[in-house]
């Protein structure tokens, strides 16, 4: 009797705590990535004397490069499993999705393997991004005049 009660209690509280822990992890890791992004942006602006737009582009490329490289080296999969949304929502998740699916299907050849699988997961981001940007852009153009 006591044991079943105990199990019920455990099951009641266990997922809750896990969720709080997951939320804290996502917030901290995502936040740190935000700081890294802003630091890189400032660094490129000041040290390399780039314009704000160019520096933002180079910052994005830097993050994509680091995420892809770490995926290739094999660290990133376990990091994503640990951090979840903290690494999936930033641009690192996009790079990770492309590199990992391409690597996974590498053996099937250049066209049917890498070529047709590189956008397997990240394709939906591009599809719905373009679709929504077109629809919302049209709305803004017609109602607010651009």
């Amino acid at each position, binding site marked *: 009797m006591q044991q079943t009660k105990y199990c019920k209690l455990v099951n009641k509280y266990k997922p809750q705590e896990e969720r709080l822990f*997951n*939320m804290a*992890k*996502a*917030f*901290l*890791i*995502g*936040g*740190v*990535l*935000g*700081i890294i*992004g*802003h630091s*890189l942006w*400032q660094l490129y602006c000041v040290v390399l004397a780039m314009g704000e737009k160019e520096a*933002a*582009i180079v910052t*994005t*490329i830097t993050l*994509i490069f680091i995420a*892809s*490289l770490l*995926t*290739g080296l094999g660290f990133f999969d376990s990091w994503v499993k640990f951090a*979840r*949304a*903290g690494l*999936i*929502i*930033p*641009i690192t*998740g*996009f*790079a990770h999705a*492309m*590199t990992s699916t*391409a*690597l996974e299907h*590498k*053996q099937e050849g250049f066209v049917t393997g*890498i070529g047709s699988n*590189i956008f397997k*997961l990240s394709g*939906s*981001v591009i*599809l*719905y*991004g*373009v679709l*929504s*940007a*077109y629809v*919302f*852009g049209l709305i*803004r*153009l017609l109602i*607010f005049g*651009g």
Partner: protein
Amino acid sequence: MTYLYAFLFAGAVCLIGQVILDNTKLTPGHVTSLFVIVGAFLDIFNIYDKFVLWAGGGALVPITSFGHLLIHGALDKAQEYGIMGLAMGMFDLTASGITAAIIIAFFITLIFKPKN
């Protein structure tokens, strides 16, 4: 101060993503697609522009900025060419990121071996 805002903004976006992942059956693919749509939607009213001014690089790191950049590229060209411009400028601002991601992913795939 912008560093603190960058931390708070990027952290908050990831936190929302984690809450959605934990409490619904949506996969990470669903959540990232949803966030891109939200990023584009917020810029109907120039809201995401304010986040970028406020949080700097912290607003450029989450995937929501992809939607923000898509709609701004489209609208910039639309100023010049009208509705046709929406399609012409769609990838103007994101082209560098997508190109870099494709090229880097391809060469990383060539160099490294899959885990299993």
